[in-house]
């Protein structure tokens, strides 16, 4: 394992497998009456969130607490960031207070990497701009492996606004690394121009792709993109790419529906589809805690900076 978790891109297939295997043990801890182990007693984890987030922040907080670490939540509003303190000065302050790990979410791509140049703490990327969201990608891989028994050879469609989605990037890189077949589906304006380098296929026809999918991964459509003219109207998007009951019926038996949340019911995914048994959206959230526990444990559970 590396010292930090900055991107899925940095991880080897062996790293990914080790993370998922470790997460399996933590999944079991989550089923106990006492859902807590003393593994990271006395360590301090700082949640440094400079962009809105509910599930990722809470998930990291729960993960750290279940490992018995001390957790500090820190967001832009109500902190000295609002007074204009620079990212560097804030980071050095956290460092001076003895943070062992900093979980950062920031609207600028690359800010977690920049942070590693300033602090000694382990840095975990909880989403940076339109770059990556590796913990989401890992929990998605975990959920697929748990539900379908493997990742290699799975056929996964990622549907929607791939262009602006750090989730789509982390997940695609992870899936390709682990030997799955990925097809990106969406309007041409929302497919990144550099996609030929990703090792994935592209389609603009959702109904042609669905019959060949083991997993249909639905991305959130941000309504503000419409104002920026990436697509003419939310209704048209829903008609062309929305995952409806009729479209789900095209998928093979046992195929999964996944979504990273928060959902726009009725836009990218119909309300009754989100509640189908084959939708594993809540399981994704539960698994997220175990995967983040595994990452904190693997990064903080070893000595820092030494090699075996």
């Amino acid at each position, binding site marked *: 394992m590396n010292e930090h978790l900055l991107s899925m891109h940095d991880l080897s297939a062996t790293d990914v497998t080790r993370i998922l295997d470790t997460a399996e043990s933590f999944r079991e801890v989550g089923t106990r009456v*006492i859902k807590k182990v003393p*593994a990271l007693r006395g360590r301090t984890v700082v949640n440094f969130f400079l962009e809105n987030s509910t599930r990722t922040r809470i998930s990291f907080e729960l993960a750290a607490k279940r490992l018995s670490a001390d957790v500090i939540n820190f967001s832009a509003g109500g902190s000295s960031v609002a007074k204009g303190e620079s990212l560097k000065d804030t980071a050095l302050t956290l460092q001076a207070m003895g943070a062992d790990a900093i979980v950062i979410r920031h609207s600028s791509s690359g800010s977690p990497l920049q942070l590693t140049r300033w602090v000694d703490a382990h840095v975990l990327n909880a989403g940076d701009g339109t770059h990556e969201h590796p913990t989401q990608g890992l929990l998605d891989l975990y959920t697929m492996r748990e539900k379908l028994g493997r990742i290699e050879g799975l056929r996964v469609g990622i549907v929607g606004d791939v262009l602006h989605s750090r989730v789509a990037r982390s997940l695609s890189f992870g899936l390709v690394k682990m030997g799955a077949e990925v097809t990106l589906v969406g309007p041409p304006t929302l497919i990144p121009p550099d996609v030929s380098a990703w090792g994935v296929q592209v389609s603009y026809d959702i109904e042609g792709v669905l019959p060949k999918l083991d997993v249909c991964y639905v991305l959130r459509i941000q309504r503000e993109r419409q104002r920026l003219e990436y697509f003419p109207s939310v209704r048209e998007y829903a008609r062309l790419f929305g995952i409806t009951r009729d479209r789900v019926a095209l998928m093979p038996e046992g195929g999964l529906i996944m979504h990273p949340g928060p959902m726009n019911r009725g836009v990218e995914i119909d309300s009754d589809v989100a509640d189908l048994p084959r939708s594993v959206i809540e399981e994704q959230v539960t698994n997220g805690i175990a995967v983040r526990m595994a990452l904190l*444990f693997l990064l903080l559970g070893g000595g820092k900076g030494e090699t075996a």
Partner: protein
Amino acid sequence: MKGPLLDADDVRRAITRIAHEILERDKGAEGVVLVGIADRGDDLAARLAREIRRIEGTDVPVGALDITFYRDDIGLKAEAPEVHETRIPFDVSGKVVVLVDDVLFTGRTIRSAMDALMDLGRPRKIQLAVLVDRGHRELPIRADFVGKNVPTGRADDVRVLVAELDGEDAVVVEGAR
């Protein structure tokens, strides 16, 4: 490397004897559960259960316990320790829990295992069965059932091989390098 300290037959006899001792000490298999410490301890626990079934005709529940998250040396080694599966499909509260491990050495693993067990419930009693006790304790812990006491050097490497993982049953000692 010398020959094995215990060969497959020795291991089998030791397990049979420990099974008898557990039944004698606990007056039968009533309320007894076996929890093996992963890895290898869980395989030995499964074998003890088979022996108890053969002798007494009773099925005792068997579980596997991973103690990684309870270790006292997390962060002291370069790499985070490898984790195994915990699989205890029964309630340990009110039971006589026999912890099973392959080698008893410093006692630190057993300390971790007892803490882990306490988080899972409140056993009536915890006992300890080990295939090999090699001495050099760092904590006030002793085993209730011992396959073989082996005097070793502190730096020796004592290894228990089990057929389930290693293809054969044996206990070998490799001298200090």
